């Protein structure tokens, strides 16, 4: 049975690193893995979507609507945008942070209100304020690894395997702060 995980957010939030940690973790379980990333123009502050799929044999690297077992959303509007991709009984893990998109900044559109409760009406929602947690830790760039910690807690893969994969994926000089960030998410 293939597991499908989507990571969504805003370009620059570090979704790519999160997907690589996840990818490197599931290989340790001996699965076939595909990770589909977005590079180039869409990375510049736009909506970004990464797919991670694993199982006995994975064909398509992409995830269709209604297929994701789990969505890890780095921003709440992006969580709402990704909702149609979630399976009926899937879980949405969402950072409650709001980042205004340009149409909202220019006044051409409004940032929708009450997104958390609207999403919770439609799906199982695990929410957290990862930005505040990262600020408390003293490095706002650790939002991505805090979220990976929450994802890890909601997965069947053991703690140690995640730690090994973080050690392999994150550059040495940021390793300590990221290990702390992971624990914050994992122990929420």
């Amino acid at each position, binding site marked *: 049975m293939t597991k499908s995980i989507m990571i969504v957010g805003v370009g620059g939030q570090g979704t790519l690193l999160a997907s690589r940690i996840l990818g490197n973790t599931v290989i340790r379980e001996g699965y076939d893995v595909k990770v589909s*990333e977005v590079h180039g*123009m869409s990375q510049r502050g736009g909506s970004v979507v990464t797919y991670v799929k694993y199982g006995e044999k994975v064909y398509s690297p992409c995830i269709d609507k209604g297929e994701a077992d789990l969505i890890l959303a780095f921003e709440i509007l992006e969580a709402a945008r990704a*909702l149609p991709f979630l399976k009926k009984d899937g879980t949405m893990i969402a950072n409650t942070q709001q980042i205004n998109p340009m149409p909202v900044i220019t006044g051409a559109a409004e940032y929708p209100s009450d997104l958390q409760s609207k999403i919770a009406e439609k799906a199982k929602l695990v929410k957290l304020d990862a930005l505040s947690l990262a600020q408390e830790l003293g490095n706002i760039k650790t939002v991505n690894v805090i979220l990976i910690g929450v994802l890890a807690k909601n997965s069947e893969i053991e703690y140690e395997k995640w730690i090994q994969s973080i050690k392999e994926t994150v550059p040495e000089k940021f390793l300590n702060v990221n290990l702390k960030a992971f624990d914050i998410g994992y122990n929420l």
Partner: protein
Amino acid sequence: MKKLLLGNAAVARGAYEAGVRVVSSYPGTPSTEITENIVAYPEIYAEWAPNEKVAAEVAIGASIAGARSMSCMKHVGLNVMADPVFTVSYTGVNAGLVFCVADDPGMHSSQNEQDSRHYAIAAKIPMLEPSDSSECKEFTKLAYEISERFDTPVFIRLSTRISHSQSLVELCDRENDELKPYEKNAPKYVMMPGNAIKRHIDVEKRMLDLKDFSDNSSLNNVEINDNTKIGIICAGTTYLYSHEALGDKVSYLKIGMINPLPEKVILDFCKRFEKIYVVEELDPIIENACKALGIDVIGKDAFTLLGEYTPSMIKSVVLGEKANESSALSENLPARPPVMCAGCPHRGTFYVLKKLGLTVSGDIGCYTLGAVPPLASIDTTVCMGASVSVAHGMGKARGNEFTKKLVSVIGDSTFMHSGITGLSDIVYNKGINTVIILDNSITGMTGHQDNPTTGYTIRGEETKQVNLIMLAKALGIENVVVADPFDVKEFERVVKEETEREEPSVIIAQRPCALLKRVKYSGHCVIGDNCKNCKMCMKLGCPAISIKDNKVVIDNTQCNGCGLCINVCPFQAIKKED
């Protein structure tokens, strides 16, 4: 050992294992990481060339000189290098020569959605198409064998989802990395009519031999499932999507050699099924080939010519099954298009151009985002380098008064790529255009590659740096001004002065990309009490500045303290804090 590798990294690994010695490319999404990953192998000489034509010629030269070589480009880069490609098809190779071209169905990061397979057919060059990272590596190695065996360059065709997906790859050792002897062979390598006429005969014979090869090659794979009445012909991504969607309910012919197609294999496969679908993104290349063979296939009558395919789309067409159930919020969600980063040097430039109400002939790079509201400054964007020559054409069409209200904007890397020739046209043909070179000291959009203006090579070694001022002067531009786009008042004065001239000018808007490691903005900007809510700073389209409860606020998680907003505030209401 199995490793999770990006398709592009797997192509690089294949090149390494195949004993490749020279790689020359120009960056272009989604192909860039192939050459970036080549850098990890010290055995291979790697470089960023100023454009794809130069890069391809470097690879051709290396091949003739006896080194297995490679050049990588995005689909539109193949247009730039088309000239040497069509003729190297005639000369053939000495050591193996492979061109990796990455298409971008769905236009994640491109200005068009062209299908590179046309080039392989038109230039009579074999083309392979892998469908995952493991095949990226294996097909690359095989491409070198085909290249040398059939005396031909070979294309590897990738697409965004193959290039930018990671999957497992088995790593092997490097082999065959010796140089082949170089011998002068003018009839083969000097393409003038007398020689080329003879080489054309060889090309046609080679394509017949390759047809035979394709029919017997393991590159093309037939997968028959029991009791199936439907056959699917697919390649690359569409094999993955089809298999995901249809599983063992159909049988598959997965084509790995796109040119020449395995016609006998196709005919044999099609005989076995009642209904045949050709599932291919973009143009009906395989479909038309099947129809020319007299096979009744269903292709673009059922599938779109546009964008990327999905498994659910294929399931719905082939099996008539509906997509999965899913829930969405009832309201319309605001879109989140890409924007220039906080601290982007281009923001100052476009703020001034918009304020002056100029017509702006644009180009390809991060700064194409200057077309998006609220800056909404750019009038045209066609292709690399076109900002300069399109503006020259506009000026010649509408006269000098129009040209005085017109500027070109082009990045440093794009200018080196193909802006220089346009500028020389302006000088030679007495244009009076103003060209603004947006010198942010890097090739930004593709993720920070060095270029001839940065002073560093692909491996980060120091090298000579093109002096843009001297270059513009050498072309005959007498008015060359360097200005900082964040000093908005001075920048505005310079733009006014230069556009008003009856002579051509070059303005070098100099400020490095905010994402470069050496750029250290600090602190963040805050709105003070004397804010009159005039919203001048909102015109910058900075992702950190927005309106909350009818007041301007700066989000300090987005702001990097670049200070541009301080420079545009007429009431000195914005201050910087640590």
